[in-house]
């Protein structure tokens, strides 16, 4: 996955993501595609979650999945989730604890759904997602409506080990997360961070529009054979657009 929150010089916040899923989940040698990724595309739907006939939030979902991996609460906040791999404190221990009856941690999908239903501000969403015990490590990427409201939370099972906030006044006009801790180099055969960061810098804050973020997210290898969809969000305007993506050859498998 690749998630980006960007702030324009006028303080507008955009949030966009590529959803990549299905790594090492069966490679179709005839078509050069990932089996699971191909099965996910027909399941993509947009959920319009309503209460009293009014939209409470919108989410991009896979039919049958009740959690939220990509969502936007108009005028409040947006959220995307990226997988985080950690040998130390991996999801295995959290899942085993759950199976053995120790139910202190939250499954990520159920937690994000709960946040969208019950939380109304960027600050509170950030606080809840920073503090809840989880089943496994994860990156939460959140965006808001005001200047500075954008962050990547690098979560372990127990706590937030790093928070990377937007800080446009000091040069951090975007935050970008793939699937690696920002203080470590990405795996050299899976470096989507470098090309995505280069494209963001070439674009510049003044040109940070949803259209241009779409260009960044559809530059290979940010776009790759695992990419299921690209979503574009603007919380203030209530925009959530999603496009099913295919990566034409030549295209990297991840």
């Amino acid at each position, binding site marked *: 996955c690749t998630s980006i929150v960007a702030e324009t010089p006028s303080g507008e916040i955009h949030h966009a993501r590529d959803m990549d899923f299905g790594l090492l989940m069966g490679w179709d040698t005839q078509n050069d595609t990932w089996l699971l990724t191909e099965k996910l595309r027909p399941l993509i739907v947009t959920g319009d979650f309503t209460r009293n006939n009014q939209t*409470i939030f919108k989410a991009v979902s896979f*039919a049958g999945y009740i959690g939220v991996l990509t969502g936007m609460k108009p005028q409040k906040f947006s959220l995307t989730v990226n997988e985080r791999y950690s040998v130390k404190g991996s999801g295995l221990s959290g899942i085993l604890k759950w199976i053995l009856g120790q139910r202190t941690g939250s499954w990520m999908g159920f937690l994000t759904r709960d946040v969208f239903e019950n939380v109304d501000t960027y600050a509170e969403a950030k606080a809840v997602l920073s503090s809840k015990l989880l089943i496994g490590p994860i990156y939460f990427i959140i965006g808001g409506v005001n200047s500075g409201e954008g962050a990547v939370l690098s979560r372990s099972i127990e706590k937030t080990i790093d928070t990377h906030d937007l800080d446009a006044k000091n040069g951090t006009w975007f935050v970008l997360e793939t699937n690696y801790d920002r203080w470590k180099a990405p795996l050299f055969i899976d470096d989507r961070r470098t090309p995505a960061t280069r494209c963001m810098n070439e674009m510049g804050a003044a040109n940070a529009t949803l259209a241009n973020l779409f260009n960044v997210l559809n530059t290979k290898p940010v776009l790759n054979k695992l990419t299921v*969809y690209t979503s574009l969000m603007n919380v203030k305007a209530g925009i959530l657009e999603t496009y099913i993506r295919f990566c034409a050859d030549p295209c990297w498998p991840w």
Partner: protein
Amino acid sequence: GDFPPPPYSETCRQGLYPPKEKPTDIATYEVNLDLPPAKRWAQLAADKAAEMKDLISVIKKLVNSFSGGLIIDLVDKDLPKLLSGLPADSVAEMQGIAQAANIPLGEIFLYNVFYEFNAF
């Protein structure tokens, strides 16, 4: 596959937006939170049952390939215990999806936690 080795060097793309597809090509479903949880996803689950079964069969094969059937057995045998710590509404929603799509509840549960399984 037909791809060069890293480091990747493709130039940053321009002018791809708007793509040929429209965002409206993806179906939008209302999830009415005023309805009982078991009924919220009924239409969506019924419409997408075949595709869900297709995906879940792949997930089961993959899970079996690394766990030797252990996890699927666990989900089949101990499902009530596994569901007991989840929010009641979430369990009811999964039950509603299972019923509408005619898929065992254990498989819907596995699907809903597979993202976390995948990470480890």
